[in-house]
């Protein structure tokens, strides 16, 4: 059931009781969880937080911690499956689901007692009506049993029951169709952290720190291609009004504000990853739209980049320095110069400029929202196999904590390594011509034993890799259809078990919707071929399967998508 009044139906209910919070592994859920944590600590609500990577762990974590728990909050997990059916909870347990995954499972939506959805109402308008999905069959079945009792003759000529049965068949056919239409595409709604921030705002407990977390959550959705740009801009506008409310200063008071306080400001940021902490050349190379448009992986592309820089009047030795160490007047000109000359190199304003926010805290250099997202996701999905996933989770928690500058710096370093490995992987895809068209879609496999393959065992990172590969392929491909082809990426997951991770992303020309149909397609392909693919991930378009089943599975996928 949808919760309309978050405060009354959710927050006031969980007061004075122990709450179990299950959090998925992405930056948005981390931010949402931190906001909720703050609220709970204000009101001394006792809680336990357990991070979960997939459905299996969700089940396990619930079983382990369910004792005596009445309220379970799920952040960015659980909305797309029938949670009551999956977890088999006792009757008094209530689930509060704050999840950006769409579509929401219909059972969750229509369960009025145990499941409460913390979501925006207008995003759930596409859900089928109750009558289309459920109907009270008790009357029918009662009649039927009666019929069989009284005898065959009566049943045969009972026109009414035939009509009823016919109608029922029609209804169930319709049900299947409606359900299929509803679940065909997976997409994302408003980020969990923004929903949580709204709650904090309604409780008058919003602070600059919480606002920053919400900003990071929203930015995470955009960076990982979950929400289209329109939705991102809409959220940013909402956030901007909060930002100006919180960071307003009277003209005279300006000097009295301590440098140690946290300040957020809206900025038209350069859309280069980590550029404040990197060299200009590196950051341009690792920026996806520019790298693709200038084809920076080739020698020619590098020359074009040098030309671009020369035209802007930026000396190479300056561009090879840390951005912060560049000449101050050059540094301040970079943004303007790039905007001036970008059209000549076929770059759009959207490739270069990203409206975003930046954070000032103390005397350290300022950080922008994308810095936070990239560094925390790099730590969250670190390629270091000796660390457990929960270790990474806590480490990423610390990064989002304000004032942890040393951890932040380590995170930035990890983010650079991750970006670099994605870039080199894409480069090798292109050089070896590994992106292959299978007719209705493109596919590419990360070879086993690749140096950085441990990075690509994680969902968010492999989404970014897939997207980069698709964009790069479209940039070099002469095939006009490339824009309308989706891409499937496979990466080795655990070598000893021989499993791979398979990710499907939608084609580029539907980019303003960001709806993904691979969830359903994978499901059907697995059914058709009887492969034991694991649909464990919270995103249905990311699955795990045995590497040996791959060819069989792909054949089925081709026939389905044709």
């Amino acid at each position, binding site marked *: 059931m949808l919760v309309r009044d978050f405060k009354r139906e959710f927050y006031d209910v969980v007061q004075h009781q122990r709450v179990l919070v299950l959090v998925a592994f992405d930056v948005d859920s981390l931010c949402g969880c931190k906001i909720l944590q703050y609220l709970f600590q204000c009101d001394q609500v*006792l809680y*336990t937080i357990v991070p979960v990577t997939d459905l299996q762990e969700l089940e396990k974590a619930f079983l382990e911690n369910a004792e005596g728990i009445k309220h379970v909050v799920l952040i960015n997990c659980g909305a797309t499956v029938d949670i009551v059916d999956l977890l088999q909870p006792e009757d008094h347990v209530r689930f509060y689901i704050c999840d950006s995954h769409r579509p929401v499972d219909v059972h969750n939506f229509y369960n009025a007692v145990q499941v409460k959805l913390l979501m925006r109402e207008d995003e759930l308008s596409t859900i089928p009506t109750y009558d289309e999905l459920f109907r009270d069959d008790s009357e029918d079945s009662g009649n039927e049993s009666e019929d069989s009792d009284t005898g065959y003759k009566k049943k045969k000529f009972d026109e009414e029951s035939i009509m009823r049965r016919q109608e029922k068949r029609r209804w169930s056919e319709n049900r299947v169709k409606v359900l299929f239409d509803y679940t065909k595409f997976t997409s994302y709604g408003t980020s969990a952290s923004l929903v949580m921030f709204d709650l904090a705002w309604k409780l008058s407990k919003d602070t600059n720190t919480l606002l920053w977390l919400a900003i990071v959550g929203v930015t995470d959705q955009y960076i990982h291609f979950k929400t289209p740009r329109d939705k991102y801009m809409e959220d940013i506008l909402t956030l901007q009004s909060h930002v100006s409310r919180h960071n307003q200063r009277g003209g005279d008071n300006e000097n009295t504000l301590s440098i140690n306080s946290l300040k957020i400001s809206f900025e038209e940021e350069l859309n280069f990853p980590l550029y404040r902490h990197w060299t200009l050349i590196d950051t341009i190379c690792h920026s996806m739209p520019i790298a693709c448009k200038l084809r920076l992986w080739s020698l020619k592309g590098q020359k074009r980049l040098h030309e671009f820089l020369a035209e802007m009047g930026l000396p190479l030795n300056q561009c090879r320095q840390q951005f912060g160490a560049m000449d101050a007047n050059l540094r301040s000109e970079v943004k303007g110069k790039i905007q001036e000359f970008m059209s000549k190199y076929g770059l759009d304003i959207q490739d270069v400029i990203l409206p975003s926010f930046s954070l000032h805290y103390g005397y350290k250099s300022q950080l922008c929202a994308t810095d936070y997202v990239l560094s925390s996701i790099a730590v969250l999905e670190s390629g270091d196999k000796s660390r457990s996933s929960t270790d990474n989770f806590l480490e990423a928690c610390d990064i989002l904590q304000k004032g942890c500058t040393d951890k932040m710096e380590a995170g930035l370093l990890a983010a650079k390594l991750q970006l670099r490995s994605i870039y080199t992987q894409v480069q090798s895809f292109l050089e070896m011509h590994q992106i292959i068209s299978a007719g209705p879609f493109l596919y590419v496999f990360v070879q086993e034993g690749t140096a950085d393959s441990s990075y690509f065992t994680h969902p968010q990172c492999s989404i970014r890799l897939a997207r980069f590969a698709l964009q790069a392929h479209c940039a070099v491909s002469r095939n006009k259809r490339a824009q309308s082809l989706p891409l499937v990426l496979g990466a080795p997951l655990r070598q000893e078990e021989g499993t791979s991770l398979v990710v499907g992303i939608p084609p580029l020309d539907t980019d303003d919707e960001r709806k993904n149909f691979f969830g359903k397609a994978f499901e059907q392909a697995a059914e058709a071929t009887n492969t034991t693919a694991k649909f464990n991930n919270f995103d249905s378009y990311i699955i795990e399967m045995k590497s040996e089943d791959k060819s069989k599975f792909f054949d089925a996928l081709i026939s389905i998508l044709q």
Partner: protein
Amino acid sequence: MLAEKALDLIRELKRTSGGTLPPFNEDKIRQVLEEVQTLFEQNRDTAKYAAEGQHDVLAAIQLRHAGIQRNKRCLLAYLYNRLENIRRMRWEFGSVLPADVKYNMCEHEAQWFNQYNRLLANYMRSIGESGGLDLTQDMKPPKSLYVLVRCLMDHGEFETQDGTVILLKKNSQHYLMRSECEHLIRQGVLEHIVQ
């Protein structure tokens, strides 16, 4: 040099001014006592000459006496500081001391510790309402009743005062009553996260 060994004892105290207790240095104490004994005997012998009217030995007697006094003061300081240390540990670690501390105590110290324990326990039982009052808790006034903790190891189930059972699994985070989890934090099962 005169009273050098006693000074060693004091130096030893200074070196270990952390949370640990060094082994009771019985050997050195015996040596200091022996030194005191010899000084005293020498003084007793020379005192005869002084009594006979040889006033030039008086200075030597004075010097030796000062040495004896100094040794005594050093020994007392050594013992007293160790006791203080043990007393502090009682407040920090509770009535059961870690094995290595216990091992380093001499017999008298152990006796003293037991008696102190008993005194403190009796006193704590007598004050407050029916159940007594644990003075060793909250040595500094706590900022909040609840704290955020992280599990550092798999500890298993933990029952709180109100009867709810919490599973303390590695890397899970909990918001718990400070008084309940304080001992687990001391044991290193939980880590207190300051925000």
